[in-house]
C-alpha cells in the first residue's frame, strides 16, 4: 500500500539563464513499512527531494501525496504544513539536530507536546522509546553529554514519538563510524518492520544500503526507478 506517492516532481532554483533544475520529473512511491534508500552523489538532488517531501520547499511542479494528503495543497497555510509534519513525518538528520538545551527525554517529549500529548502519558512514551533504542539510561543527559551514536538514537526516538507513517532520514550515518552506522541502519529496518513506518533514507554511502527494501538512484535531478531488493 503506497504511503508516499510522488509524481513528476520538478524543482527549479532561480530563473532565466541562471535557473538550475534540482529535480526533473521525479516520480517514486514508498509503501508502508518499507525501508527505502535514495542514493546519489553530492549535488544530485536527493536532499531537495527529501525537503520537498517534508513540505519545506515548494516544488516548481508535480505532486506529492502522503497518505490521503496532498502536500502543498493550494489551500494550505504555514500552520497546516506544520500540523501535517508533526502528524505524518518524523525527521532524522546527519548532524543529529537535537535541541541543545533539552535533555534526551525532553527532546522526545517536545515532539509529543507539540502534537498535543502531555503529562505522564508523554513521559511514558518518551521513556519507552528511549529504552527501545537503548538510551534509556541516558535520558536525563543533555545532547552535549551524549556520544554521536547516542544522539542519533535520541533523534530516532524523537522521530518515532508521534508514530508517524513516514520517517525521513537525511544522511543519518554520515557522522558515525561504520559500525555505528550499520547499527543505525539495522535500527531503521527494525522500526520499519515493527512500527510499520515507511523509512525514506537519503544517503550517498553505498555501504549502508544493504537490506533496503527499495533503492532509488538520483543523478542530475532525475530519479531512476526504484529497485525492490527485498521481498516482504
Amino acid at each position: 500500500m503506497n504511503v508516499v506517492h510522488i509524481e513528476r516532481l520538478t524543482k527549479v532554483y532561480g530563473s532565466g539563464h541562471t535557473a538550475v533544475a534540482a529535480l526533473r520529473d521525479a516520480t517514486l512511491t514508498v509503501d508502508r513499512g518499507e525501508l527505502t534508500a535514495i542514493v546519489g552523489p553530492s549535488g544530485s538532488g536527493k536532499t531537495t527531494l527529501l525537503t520537498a517531501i517534508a513540505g519545506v520547499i515548494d516544488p516548481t511542479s508535480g505532486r506529492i501525496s502522503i497518505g490521503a494528503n496532498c502536500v502543498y495543497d493550494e489551500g494550505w497555510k504555514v500552520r497546516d504544513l506544520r500540523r501535517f509534519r508533526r502528524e505524518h513525518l518524523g525527521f532524522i538528520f546527519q548532524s543529529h539536530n537535537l535541541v541543545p538545551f533539552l535533555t534526551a527525554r525532553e527532546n522526545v517529549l517536545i515532539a509529543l507536546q507539540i502534537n498535543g500529548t502531555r503529562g505522564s502519558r508523554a513521559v511514558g512514551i518518551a521513556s519507552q522509546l528511549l529504552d527501545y533504542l537503548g538510551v534509556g539510561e541516558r535520558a536525563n543527559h543533555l545532547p552535549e553529554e551524549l556520544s554521536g551514536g547516542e544522539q542519533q538514537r535520541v533523534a530516532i526516538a524523537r522521530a518515532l514519538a508521534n508514530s508517524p507513517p513516514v520517517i525521513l532520514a537525511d544522511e543519518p550515518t554520515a557522522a558515525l563510524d561504520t559500525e555505528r552506522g550499520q547499527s543505525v541502519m539495522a535500527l531503521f529496518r527494525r522500526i520499519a518492520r515493527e512500527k510499520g513506518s515507511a523509512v525514506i533514507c537519503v544517503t550517498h554511502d553505498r555501504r549502508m544500503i544493504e537490506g533496503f527494501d527499495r533503492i532509488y538512484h538520483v543523478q542530475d535531478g532525475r530519479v531512476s526507478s526504484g529497485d525492490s531488493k527485498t521481498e516482504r
Partner: protein
Amino acid sequence: MNLAIRDLRQHWGRFSLSCFGVGLLLTLVLSYGGIYNGFVADALALIGSSGTDLWVVQKDTRGPFAEQSRLPDDARDRIAVVPGVSVTSPYIFYTVQRPWHGRMLRFVVVGYDLGTGMGGPARVVAGRGIVQAHYEMVADQKLGLRVGDTVPLGLHEYIVVGLTRGMVGSGGDPAVFFSYQDAEEIQFVKDNWAIRNGRQRALAAYTHALPTQPVLAPGLSRRFADNPELHSVNAVLVRLAPGAEPAKVAASINRWEYYTAYTTEEQSQLMLTGPVTLAKRQTGLFRVLLTIITTVIIAQIIYTMTLEKLKPIALLKLIGAPNGLIIGLVLQQSLALGLIGYMIALVLGNLTYDKWPRRVIVGPPDQLALLALVLGICVFASLVGVRRALRVEAGAALTG
C-alpha cells in the same frame, strides 16, 4: 515543559549577569522617580510642618522659600488685627555654610517664635525641643550633629538640644531650628570690627549733616542693637480663627497691608512650580533616556539570545511547532530578564536609598508603575527577537 527556562538553564551565568545589568538600569529609572518625589517632599517639608494657614511676605515677592523676602518683625502686630486672624508668628529662613571641626556645615536656618511654635520642628526624634529663647538649636539628623554638640555661629555658641528627621530646605540642605531672635542675630549681628567701622561711618555722616539736619541728632544716640534693620524676618505665619476662610483673609491682607499673603496651598504651589519644576523636567528627561536605553539593551540581549537559538527554532518548526511556541520562548525570556532585573532594582534600591546624597522616596505606586513599564519594555523589546525567530525557515534545520 517550558522551553524558555530550559534554555536559560544552559546559560544561567551569562543570563544572571544580563539580569544584573538590567537591574542596575532599572534601579536608576526607579530612583530618578524617587529623587523627584524627594524634591517634592523636601520642598514641602517645612511648609507642611509649619502648622500655618497663611504666609505673609514682602509685597509682590514669592518668599520666603522661592524668593528672598524681608519685612519688619513687628509686621506680625499689624497682621494680627486683620479680621479672621487668630495668631501671627515671625518666620526666618536662610542658608548658611560654616566650618565646624574640619568639615563644612551647610544648613538652612529656620527661626520661629517659641511662644506660638508655628514653623518650628514638628517632631523631635532625639533630645528635646528648644525651651529657652537663646543659644539652643534643634538640627536635622542629616546634618550629622549629635545632641550636646555646640556650634559657634556669629558671636555665640549654640548647643544642639534635639534632632529632627526629614526636615530639609527645598535644596535638600538640612534644617536647623532656632528662636527667631537668635536667627536674626546670627544673620545680622556683625563682629566687633564691623560694628566699629559702621559706627564711625554713621557718626561721620550724621556729623556732616547736623548743621542742616538737626532732626537726625537722635540717631547718634541710638544703640546699634536698636537699629530696626536688625529686626527683619522673612515671613509672618498666620493661623486663622475658626471659620475664617484663608483666601478671604489673604485677599484682605493683600488689599490693606503692604504685604503679600499666600495660603499654604499657594505657598506649596509656588515651590512646585518654581524650583521643583526644573528638577521634574531634568529627572523626567533622565528617566525617559534610561527607559529607552533599557529597552534597547533588553532588545539587544533578547535578539542575541534568539540568534543563538536559530537552529533549534528551525528544528522546532520542522517538527511542527506552532508559532505560539516560538513566540512564547522569546517573549518569556524577555519577561524573565525584565522581571528579574526589576526585582534586583527593588532590592538594590531599598538597600541603598538611605545612602544617596539626596532624599529618594519610592513608594508602592512608583514600584507598580515601574513594573508596568518593565512589562511593556519586555514585550516591545522581544518584538525584534520574535520577528527574527519567525523569519527562520524550517528548512534551515535540514541544511545544517
